[in-house]
């Protein structure tokens, strides 16, 4: 499966996407959009508001989801190329980048993350700090109390 096929398949699970490109000063500029797949060109037609100084060139597409409790996270990204076409913009995916969502992604993140973390510590010549469970437990207690008081006021 090539990048276009992977992106167009995953895109169906989201109602919109975020397109990132660069402006004339080289800063990232991002807009939410509803990409329209164009199978003939293996690309996505995207609408970008005027006046942002968007430049054709390397670009990124992100789709992500979380629920109201900031959970159920899922996402994917795509590297690609943004170009002018028919007076509008066309995003051509060149690589599919898996993100969050599902057991496989979770295992990949934890196994890879742990390995990279120890590599980082070695490169920086630092010891890992102790986990401050006292602070975490106090924050947990405060959060529970805060949520409880909001519920009581609501009822």
């Amino acid at each position, binding site marked *: 499966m090539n990048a276009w096929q992977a992106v167009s398949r995953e895109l169906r699970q989201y109602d919109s996407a975020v397109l*990132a*490109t660069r402006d004339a000063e080289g800063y990232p500029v991002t807009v*939410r959009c509803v990409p329209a797949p164009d199978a003939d060109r293996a690309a996505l037609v995207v609408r970008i508001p005027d006046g942002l100084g968007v430049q054709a060139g*390397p670009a990124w597409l992100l789709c992500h989801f979380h629920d109201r409790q900031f959970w159920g996270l899922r*996402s994917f*990204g795509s590297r690609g190329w943004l170009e002018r076409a028919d007076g509008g913009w066309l995003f051509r995916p060149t690589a599919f980048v898996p993100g969050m969502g599902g057991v496989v992604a979770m295992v990949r993140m934890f196994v890879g993350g742990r390995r990279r*973390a120890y590599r980082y510590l070695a490169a920086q010549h630092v010891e890992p700090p102790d986990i401050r469970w006292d602070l975490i437990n106090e*924050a947990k207690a405060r959060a529970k109390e805060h949520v409880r008081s909001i519920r009581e006021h609501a009822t």
Partner: protein
Amino acid sequence: MSTNRTQDFAAVFGVPPAVGAVVREFRSCEFSTLARDGTPVTWPTMPFFDPEHRRFLITTSIGLAQKAFNIRRDGRVAMLFSNPTGSGLVSPPFVLVQGDADAAEGVAPPEEFGIERTQLLFERQPVGITMIGILPGPVRRLADWYSWRIFIHVRPRRIRWWPDGDLEQPYGEVVV
């Protein structure tokens, strides 16, 4: 380091209150850094505005440090607030903040993140409380790397917003 929930992004930068509400209430923003080849790379993250220093704090685990590596090479970044899920806001504006970031070397001392920010995180992601509670000790230790964080600070440079999240409308803008 402490957060002050009553002091608003809007008051600090002179933008409309609705823009301040977005920064305060949204659960995530889409955070863009620049890869070595110049491609913007964007992933969702949870930002904390620090009114005292007029900047955002974003943290990332040292095991997921690519955005910090990108910033150490090129500090130009963008934050888009465009997903209102969980915020409780109705028809909020889209807010785009472009800015300059730095990512400190080493590992941030955990106490500098602060109890108030940790509390806010638990309030917004209550599953986190449950997860910490149910994970057995040895498994929890395998996840210790996730708590070793790098601090990223973003100083806003240009703020744009689209009223009602309508990109067909003219946007408002403040250049800092």
